[in-house]
């Protein structure tokens, strides 16, 4: 084992890869598992979504019918809605803290990062 090196060039590459890995994973430590979206139906908080991990879906019963929500580490998006204009669907992924996804005809609001809890959120939804 005397002939074996203590540090080789692959080690240097490994440390660079590790450094990049730490950089990529650092936001997980800073934000923790705290990034959430709250689903309001008719102004009432109905569900809480964790914006971590792989994308998954949630179906919501709105006033007009069933809405399909996709959420995960990428943020939240409305994948399907029964409303005629499909504005919320066309909005695409929303991931910024404080952002809202709103489906007015269905009376459904999705607020990111839990900034709006019951009594602190919007007063009402009109359309």
């Amino acid at each position, binding site marked *: *084992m005397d002939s074996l*090196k203590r540090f*080789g060039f692959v080690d240097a590459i490994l440390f660079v890869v590790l450094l990049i*890995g730490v950089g990529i994973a650092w936001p997980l430590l800073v934000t923790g598992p705290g990034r959430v979206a709250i689903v309001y139906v008719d102004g009432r908080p109905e569900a809480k979504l964790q914006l*971590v991990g792989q994308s998954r879906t949630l179906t919501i019963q709105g006033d007009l019918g069933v809405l399909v929500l996709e959420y995960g580490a990428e943020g939240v998006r409305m994948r399907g809605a029964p409303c005629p204009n499909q504005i919320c669907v066309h909005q695409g992924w929303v991931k910024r803290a404080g952002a809202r996804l709103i489906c007015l005809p269905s009376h459904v609001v999705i607020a990111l990062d839990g900034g709006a809890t019951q009594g602190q959120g919007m007063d009402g939804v009109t359309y």
Partner: protein
Amino acid sequence: MASPTDMISSPKPSSTVVATCLVLACALQLAENLLPKIPLFPWLKLGLSHLLILPFLLRYGAIPATGLAISRNLLTWMVAGTPLTSLMVGLIAGIVSVLGVGAIARPLVMKGWMGWIGLGVASAVAHNLTQLAVVEWILVDHAGFYFQIAPLLIWSAVSGSIMAWLASSALPFWSALFQGELHWQGPSLTVDAETASPKESASWLFYGSLGVLMGLLLLPWWKAQAVFAILVFTQGLIPWKKPGREMAHRTFSRAWRSQWRAVKSTWPLLLFMAWLHLFHGEGHLLGIGSLTKEGVEAFALHAFRLVNLALLGPRILPLFPRSWLRKSSSPFAQGILAALPALATLPTEVPGAAREFWRGWKKGDAKSLSEGLRRFAEKILAGAVSKNRT
């Protein structure tokens, strides 16, 4: 002393070398337990036993080194009664970090493209990340648990580098160890086949327990897990041998303490589960703070599952069919059997040997790490042999 070419060849380890390495690996693991732990992250360890596994990997190859890592995990479970969850996680992480990384990294080290430090760091990264993934997958089941990735990577780089540097500073010791110069000086430590395991005939109980274990891991209903936990806990408190009243009381209180100890050992993970599932769970809001129905149910499921595994571990332990080991011609099976009696004395021998090593290191009595390790190993092995003679 082995020449460099000897050290990078791949001979098969003898059962004596395996037994010696197993005792030393377990001693290093016990010595590590003497070091203070990081609050809330008790699983962040230096990995002192990798001090031995790394040179073993370079000397004998990835498959024998994996055999050593698996045997060490089995031994510490059989002797020290480590929790079943630690055994499961340790086995999977050991296979990935030693077999997976070893198979790729060893040829690179042999060619001189990679050094000891890279091998140590790669192994530590694989070990720690696999542990994290297995714990998240089997026990916690919350993607938020991955928030630890960045600190784990940093810790792996530090601990892997330290272990690799220390291992590469003790080459004469590894040569002596692998050439069998440190083997038992006393009588054969092979276990008496007749007395090895009194419950050998009941090995079907072991298979049944493994089935129950699989069931627990797959059972997705928290109420079923809760009922099982209550049954196992209360069943453990019943004095089945019908002792007298005073004896029954003593048996009950001893059983209560041991069961409580098993449950208590799970507290760091329970705390993480509560934090993740109760405060960062998702689902339908219950109207009590940010608690969700699904979050509470997920916490109950995973907490009861963890408690069940903690309670089940000590029950499966005596049922382990040691005849498997006796029938095998593998040096690892024979090494485990040979090391078993020596391990009984380790908990009393290791603190003294570790203190002596540390004092020698500080005073400069041990001129090199090799010499310090040699003294440590000789003290451990001498203690094991003399106590087993008596």
